[in-house]
């Protein structure tokens, strides 16, 4: 890991190639907060190719820790924890506006919703975890700021995932804010 980081830093610090048509390869981390109970705080990885710095073709993995709630049961209360993992392709168009880059697009992918139900005060009772994979569409808008060799991108997204069939319904759609910190590398054009 340390070696990989060093390679990334070295590559980022290397002089840029000066070709006739450059795109960007971006590696980075992403973290954020989604208002839906299945999302809440999350963090993950982001990668993207931006051919010609026009089309944004990316992918992300975000683990959302979700939320925990307690509901009453017959014998005892239940602790319900809902969380999710998002794996999506990020497609967008990039527009330079002054010194920043605006990316308008959408994430298309899947969300793995999980829900764990634990009966409180009954230690022998095993917790039950159910999961559901749902299709995700999430329109988004992000703004990329350059900070030295890094790009910092706050992003607003509206998640529209399918409805997981869980014992306890929790919210799974709604707005989310993310912050990406990525290292961009200039790359030659992909196709000739």
């Amino acid at each position, binding site marked *: 890991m340390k070696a990989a980081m060093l390679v990334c830093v070295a590559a980022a610090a290397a002089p*840029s190639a*000066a*070709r006739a048509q450059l795109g960007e390869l971006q590696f980075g981390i992403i973290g954020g907060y989604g208002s839906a109970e299945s999302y809440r705080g999350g963090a993950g990885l982001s990668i993207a190719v931006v051919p010609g710095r026009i089309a944004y073709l990316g992918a992300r993995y975000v683990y959302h820790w979700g939320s925990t709630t307690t509901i009453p049961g017959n014998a005892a209360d239940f602790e319900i924890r809902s969380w999710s993992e998002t794996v999506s392709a990020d497609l967008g168009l990039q527009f*330079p506006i002054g010194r920043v880059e605006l990316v308008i697009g959408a994430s298309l992918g899947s969300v793995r919703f999980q829900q764990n139900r634990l009966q409180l005060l009954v230690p022998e009772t095993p917790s039950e975890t159910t999961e559901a994979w749902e299709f995700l569409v999430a329109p988004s808008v992000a703004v990329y700021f350059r900070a030295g060799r890094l790009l910092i991108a706050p992003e607003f997204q509206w998640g529209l995932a399918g409805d997981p069939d869980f014992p306890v319904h929790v919210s799974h759609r709604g707005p989310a804010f993310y912050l990406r910190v990525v290292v961009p590398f200039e790359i030659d054009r992909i196709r000739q």
Partner: protein
Amino acid sequence: MAIPLLGWLLQPAGVAAQRGRPPEHGGLTESIGQPPRWRWSGGLGAGGWFEGPQNEFMARAELGVQHDLLGPSIGLLSVVFEGYAGYRGSDPGGGFRAMLRSGYMGAGVGADYDTELGRVNLLVRLETPVQRGGLFGSGGMIRVNWYPMETHSFTLGLSHPLGQPRAGKTRPLEEKIVVALEFPAPIPYQVRDPALDAVLDSLRGSAEWIRRTVVPFLDQDARDTRTAEARMAASVDELASRLSRRSAEEEVRWFHAQLDLAFSLAAADIEAGRRAAAEARALLLHEVLLPYNGLLGRKKRKDTLVELGIAARGRFGRWVAGSGVIPHGRVEPVLYVYQALLESVNELRGRAAKEWDDPRLVWLPLQYALLPEDHDTQAEIDALIERAAGQRLAAGNQVWYLANLQFHWELLRMIRETKDYHVLWIHDFPAVTAAGGLDWASFSQVVDGYLTTLAERVERYDSTGSLPTYFIFLDQHYYEVRKSRIWMSLLEDPLTASSTLPGATLEQTTKLAAVLGRLRRAVDSSRVLQAEARQYSSAWLRNRIKVHVNITYQADPSFWGGGLVSSLFGYPDNLMRDHRKLAFHDVSEDDPYRGTAIYTGMGVGEQYLGSSWEDRSLLVRGPSLLDLKREARDLLLSQGIAPEEMPLVFRERTASPQGNPPVEAKARVMTLHNRTGYEAKPLNVAKAILYSLLPPGSVIKVPDSLWNSMFFAGLLTGASCRGVRVLIVAPALANAPSAGFPQMIRAWELASRLVAVRARLGPVLARVGGQLRIGLYALEIHDDAFTDRVKAWQTSFAGTPFLRDLMPFAESLMPVARWAAARPGPDSAMVGPSYPKLHQKVQFFANRAAWDAMVVAPEWPEFMRIYLAYRRTTLYVTGEYRDARSGPDQLEAMARRMYARVLATAGPRAAAYAFVGSQNQDYRGMFMDGEVGVLLTGPETLVALVDLVFLEGAVVWLDDQATVDRLLRRPGEWERRLARIAKDAV
């Protein structure tokens, strides 16, 4: 009904019978014809139906027809109607579909009515040809039908065009040319000699600087304009720093001195080393550099010089071992040096490909094999161009340089003078204008040219027994855009076509009806024709009395290039057009002087005529035209015409020329065709030779309407670094005939960068006497198209010192200009300003010896007077045919007198060239489109020169960015990026 339909769908191209016989003996002439309005296809598919109680197997046969709605030549959007039948599970069934489909995207979406289910389903279709030419090489596709609302039910199968026998055959199957075929790995030479290695290191370093000097890379990209320009500036500053220490010529001499030294060290003998170096250079030039550079502009596979190098090494090894020059014990070190040289050149090739981000733009400097004195005379440069382009500079031609309107007149004359056959090979033959009326210039060619001449010839047929055969080769793009189907349908079937055309005035309709009536009466009255028609059929008669229309490069979605997998992320060949513009008639191997040809930059149509358009053509007669038959033949073959279908006039034949050349036929001419799409591009090569080799003191003038090629700009910048005086002219935004934003943004980038380069290289250029001038044609006409041009010229030359320094004869032209400025033309009552469009593609080249002798010729005032009189004649549209040949005749005569003086002064060292043709200075012209160019040498180049001297009067020369931004709009960053992505196609 079904059987004739099936027969039509499955018919082979053309009619097999009657192909081998000449038309006068009952033969039929084959042609491609026009693209069908409706195109049929059939398909077979199988898959699964998942919507229901159980999953079911599904198999279907489909029959459909599609009609283009938008962008037919690239298949942008079409509507598809289909029926299908088959089984779902064990139940037979069928249905109907209506879809919108984009062949460009390989996708469609629509409604599918399933008769068994009794409901409409959403259908998404994806198609891909898998390989170029499609499945089976006949346009077949893999087809996926997907029902996303029916639990993702689908079919996967094949589709195939029906009734389109040339589908899958209209483009080359290979998009890339293989540079290195299979070769055995050579056994490397190993020599340990630190002194030799030090020299080789020095050689490598010098070779890299030669590369950067000959073709400096100026097209750096970055996240914004400022950063990109800073990168370019840094690169140019490095070059300037190097050139300030060692000039371009000194670098080349240093390189060759190191090469001599390396071979001398290896041979342990100075004289033997020099002879080895000379042999090495010759083999490097002929076995490696010229063959590789001959691929400029083409996609490459296995892009390495290893195989070419093996041939060179083999021959060099044979010389080393067999010549006796190299001492016996020194063979290995000598071969080691040659190996190192070749490896070095191969490394530089790779570096250039990486830098330009495109192997199509790699040009290996011929300076690696040539000393400056090897390419400073006409004979030396001629030989290099001939070798690199694979064409001869044919002597004994007669040439007329034509301005503007005379193309229209000469085309009419040609059509009417044709005895055997005539070919109009054009990219634009418009039927309607933007205002909706019939294009009068096209109308004139159709009615006064083709139809009237056909009628006259038929009227005389009983006595002459001969009729001319007319061919039109018209690229599909503008055929669709400009509604040329109206003309082509009329010309294809004049015996039954209606005289009522959309947009025609009553006068036009009456005139057309009259000429059609005359033709039909003549046919009916011809006893011989009627007798022949009884023998050969009425189909023969219709084939005889027509213009053979060939709409070329018809949309074929089975050809894609550059895709990651099949057509995924690729781009269609349909984007590549035949941009060639020429016409010829009666060209014959028996008598090279029987026919003539016009090469031009313009199309047929009124937009190209008159004072608001600058275009030039070249009328040629002589042996250089013989290549045209081959080009026409190859075009038809490339479009799917089978060899046995080839019209007889284009078939290959050998004959001994019989005709005697006219006394005036002295011009040396080379005709070069960049073929459409992924085929050979010799025109690029000839230009690159001239840009990269003309010696110090030469003058190069390159105006163009689409000046976007950073590669050509790099070569010309390199020329200026050698001491060449380079004048580049592009149109200002208001004067640009093709002013789309991607083109103009690239033009802005090019102009901006050249202005910056000129400033940064200033001291270097001053040291070697080079100039890099970039100007914008920015003519504004207020009163009279002719006199305003003359006045602009007077003002420009009076106020531009560098023009007067470069062309000291300019002062002597002022009285002529004053004389001309007092002679307005017939449309002087012009309302409001107009901005003539710079569309001409004429380039001029002269080495110092020729230029210095040219500029002191005392004939200049008279030369300019003749020229201005001729321009005035050809500037104003009258719509009437005129014989304006006296102008070009006088210009040619004067040019010959002047050039005789040049030769008397400069001797054989004088070298001069001119290009006239269709190719723009852009990547589309280099990579994609079919182009034609004529390279002239000798006296005739002076006519191009006087024309360009006058043109330069309308140019604003750029010294600062503000002027660039004023005349070419400064783009936004997003536009700049878009233009850069699209740069290969604009």
